[in-house]
């Protein structure tokens, strides 16, 4: 038995990826669950508008009970702004709630109105609790997701998750299978240009993922009644760019893997942090800053931002240009590197200098 144990350890040591998984996974889990797994948003960004904004600000600072579930960060106090301005702020995701005072309020008796962004589910829940504590002193309205349905927030995110799954796992398996069967070598010696091999290999996965994206979006809207308030074009452009980024990750994984098993292993290692840190499950606002930045380097985070913005809030280019631009940069870099690496695998060897 001792020989068996020694042999197993020797084999494990050679399989660097398994070692990495054994070491990295527990650490990752601990860090993520320790710092990121937090559903409670304890700081809400607030805009106060209307001619009594400054008084309201003072009242908020004085009257919010010490045991309130969340503190308020007054990011914008503007007596000249109108209710429409406040709604724009919410739509652009600059604030989690807006307080309309004085002229701007939507009540008949002059009480302030609190508008809550329902597309940030956990922030909205904290805000609702807070508003409930204020009782009759204010009137409130939850925008974009009035019943605070979890599915409304999850479906746009799940679209991204499904695209990530296809783009990363399915694509990398498809490419590695060719390497495993020895047929990549065959493709390389055929009179096909490396570019046409690479494009011919990736296009089917791109088309399949596009098909899935449309299917899941339609099904999500139909089954769960998730609204699609924004521009279809913006959503389609953003999703296509996002797809290039995740396909790129899939291709990249295939170029560093020799077998399907290895590819799946690496793909899962890239999927896990995306699921947990993209804000689709745990709100980014509730994460410790030390792990939140990881979320911001993952493409899924930006896609979730984009899809929730377009579908729920009906946000447009002017507020969603940032996620689109970041996704475009990620897609260019990742896809570019991936295609260059794959191309190098099948291009003829260059003579040594």
């Amino acid at each position: 038995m001792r020989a068996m144990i020694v042999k197993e350890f020797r084999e494990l040591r050679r399989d660097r990826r398994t070692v990495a998984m054994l070491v990295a996974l527990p650490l990752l889990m601990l860090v993520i669950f320790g710092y990121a797994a937090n559903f409670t948003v304890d700081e809400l960004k607030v805009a106060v508008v209307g001619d009594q904004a400054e008084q309201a600000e003072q009242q908020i600072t004085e009257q919010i009970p010490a045991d309130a579930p969340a503190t308020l960060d007054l990011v914008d106090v503007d007596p000249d702004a109108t209710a429409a301005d406040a709604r724009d702020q919410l739509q652009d995701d600059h604030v989690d709630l807006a307080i309309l005072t004085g002229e701007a309020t939507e009540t008949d008796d002059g009480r302030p109105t609190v508008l809550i962004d329902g597309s940030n589910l956990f922030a909205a829940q904290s805000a609702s609790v807070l508003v409930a504590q204020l009782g009759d002193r204010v009137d409130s309205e939850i925008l974009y997701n009035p019943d605070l349905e979890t599915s409304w927030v999850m479906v746009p995110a799940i679209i991204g998750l499904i695209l990530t799954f296809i783009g990363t796992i399915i694509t990398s398996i498809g490419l590695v299978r060719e390497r495993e069967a020895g047929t990549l070598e065959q493709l390389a010696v055929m009179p096909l240009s490396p570019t046409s091999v690479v494009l011919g290999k990736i296009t089917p996965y791109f088309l399949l993922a596009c098909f899935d994206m449309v299917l899941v979006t339609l099904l999500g809207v139909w089954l769960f009644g998730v609204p699609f308030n924004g521009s279809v074009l913006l959503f389609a452009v953003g999703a296509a760019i996002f797809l290039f980024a995740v396909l790129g990750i899939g291709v990249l994984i295939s170029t560093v893997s020799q077998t399907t098993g290895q590819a799946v292993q690496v793909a899962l290692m890239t999927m896990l942090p995306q699921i947990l840190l993209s804000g689709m499950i745990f709100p980014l606002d509730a994460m410790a800053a030390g792990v939140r930045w990881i979320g911001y380097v993952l493409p899924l985070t930006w896609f979730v931002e984009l899809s929730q913005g377009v579908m729920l809030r009906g946000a447009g280019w002017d507020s969603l240009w940032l996620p689109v631009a970041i996704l475009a940069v990620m897609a260019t870099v990742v896809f570019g590197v991936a295609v260059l690496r794959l191309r190098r695998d099948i291009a003829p060897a260059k003579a040594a200098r």
Partner: protein
Amino acid sequence: MAGVRDLTVELGGTTALAGISVEVPPGEVTALVGGDGAGKTTLLRAMLGRVAASRGTVDVPPAARIGYEPSTSGVWPTLTVQENVEFVGAAYGMSDGAVRSRADELLTTAGIADARTRLGRDLSGGMRQKLGFCLAMQHSPDLLLLDEPSTGVDPVSRIELWRLVTAAAQGGAAVLMTTTYLDEAERAATVVALQDGEVLAAGDPATVVDAVPGTVSVSDSPPGDGRTWRRGRTFHTWTPADGEVPGRAVTPDLEDSLVALTLARTEETR
């Protein structure tokens, strides 16, 4: 003529091929033999442009005129036989009609025409190698490079495979095939024996046999001097030119010759 001249290939710091010259004449089969790691596959890969030459020249027709069967057979496991043939035909720019008639001809000759609808991965080892050969031959290439097409193939299928190879050469193709079966190599017009990236012997099989220095002899019990190898129930021994020959001296066959040449080479370099 296809071939390589003074070809040196270095792979990861070691010399895989050390300035070898090999010619592959059209209309003939050239067999590349040698032990594991001798450089056989590296030579094929250098001719395919898959590894770079550090020195020397590689002379081959353009990619579209080369047919290649890798040692893994190059068959797509999740495509049917027919789909494999169609894909390769299309990749070489053949018309649908040309693919169909050529595939009929090749698959029938190879005896796998009845398996058209079977998946590549469901074929037996021998059938897969034969399909791999058909794929390499599909576009009637001028140069056919076969990497161990008969390894792992049963004796009957090997005979059929060899028939296909001979037919390809008779059709005018220059065929270079690696093999570890020396009885097979004996049927080739030219045998090139590689060892440690160098050419140990080259020429028609008779020339290679003639090149053996000293004597090969057969005895029923091992003489025990380290130059003996066993074949079946007898012991074969190589003795350098001036040594005392144990047992009965024989004219060596190709297998004996290559073992003897290897031994002679080893003693020379020691």
